[in-house]
């Protein structure tokens, strides 16, 4: 879509620097307010053993962040699994508090197969 606006350079020759004031900044990753700490049992359906781990999680946490943490603990690449609660696959862009997750609940690590829901 670039077009030559012929005399534009003359008309605008006094423009100083081409600083990328337009460049996007890194957004802050913050914990949402109003979250509370709860205990969750994470259980893996994948890998060589049925691993189960109890973790303290804040409901204001982002699902994607929890996934990365859990992936590190279980030794599984986050792109190889989804988190599932009550049959619902948790959306990485959402927060734990967006789902009816209660203290003492179990969240499963399920295979991120090509169908993946």
């Amino acid at each position, binding site marked *: 879509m670039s077009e030559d606006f012929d005399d534009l350079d003359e008309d605008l020759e006094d423009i100083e620097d081409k600083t990328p004031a337009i460049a996007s900044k890194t957004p802050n990753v913050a914990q949402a307010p109003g979250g509370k700490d709860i205990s969750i049992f994470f259980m893996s359906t994948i890998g060589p053993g049925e691993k189960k781990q109890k973790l303290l999680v804040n409901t204001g946490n982002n699902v994607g962040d929890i996934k990365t943490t859990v992936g590190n603990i279980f030794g599984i690449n986050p792109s190889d699994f989804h988190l599932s609660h009550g049959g619902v696959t948790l959306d990485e862009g959402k927060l734990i508090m967006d789902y009816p997750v209660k203290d003492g609940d179990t969240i499963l690590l*399920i295979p991120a197969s090509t169908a993946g829901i």
Partner: protein
Amino acid sequence: MGESDFFSKDLTAKERQLYDRQFRLKGWNQRILKNSRILIVGVGGLGCEIAKNLAMLGVGHIDLVDLDVIEHSNLNRQILFMDADIAKPKAIAAVEMLKKVNPNIILKGYHTSLEKLPPVIFKKADVIVGGLDSKNARINLNLQAVRFKKPLVDGGVNGYHGHIYTIFPYENACYDCHPTSSTESDEMAACTVVGVPRKRVHCLFKATMAFEEKFSTVPNPGNIDDVNFLISFANNLVDKFNFNPQFTVKEVINIIDHHEPGIITINAVIASIQSQEILKILNYQKGNSALGIPSKEYIIYNGMTQKFYYLTKPRNPECLQCGKNVIREELYIRKDQKLQCIIDALKMKGYKLDEEMEPILTVPEFDSLRELDLEKTAIANKIRSLSFISLSGFQEGEIFVTIRLFK
């Protein structure tokens, strides 16, 4: 032979011989299979196995659709292509092989995308089978299954694991009940970031962009010079923007040469379960529950431990496909009518226009949303009978229209 239909006149003597061992199963009904029609979407690792199974079983009519062609790397797990030429369309090659597997059944192959498949093929199927590997395609397939109320027997694999799930529209969760946002595709994000990379992997994608700009072609992961260019460019950025550690050759190749792993053993298990569920559904639909009640659960398979897990997926009452607020209409329009008649027909049905909107008709197409010209006919708009159209502009909200064309 028990209570089976062995002597049914629908079956030839040859067929009776062929299916002899099946007839010996309690409650078996070969006639039901012979009169059934299945649509298999995606003839890859799962699709080939399911098609092979259903053909051997004697399912009377199988439609196969796939827009891909055969690659050499398919042959470790896609048995239907063993005799075919590389680069032959999969759907076509599959039909040729399946004809040898069972000459008694009807087989049709469609080398096309889901969107271009004549919608009547979805409508005529008794069961739709998913063997896809793309999220977008899956969402489109879900749309068709829900609107035509067809069971969608889907499956997926990942490494040594997999899952099977049948969507029974309006009975259990469909794919749109709990949608997940596409995690920002790193490549897409890199394209829109000019300036500061926000993630370590952006450094590598910016390197591939620089490569493409310089050499007018994509880098070849098999060419060490290409890889070295990428490494030095990417690691420059890694240093500059503090995203250590540096990239290694192995890591770069892994990232840019992205193909999913695939193995016949896991595929065979998942496909078999899908196939058995298809059998159960076909019989159950016709009143024969002797093979068991079709499973509504999401079944997970772990090939390392040989354990299975079962999840119940609840429906979402606010679902955009199967929820309680979804409005669907079926309209008959003449071939020579301008599509404006759809708006008029809905007004006559009592729908009220939203004053802040201009009514528009759109057709979802893979990754886009194509607007239809209200001043032109259906054919001129490249839509056909049974096409799915979405309408915006009425106060009641989005209206899903299935059109039926007649002369």
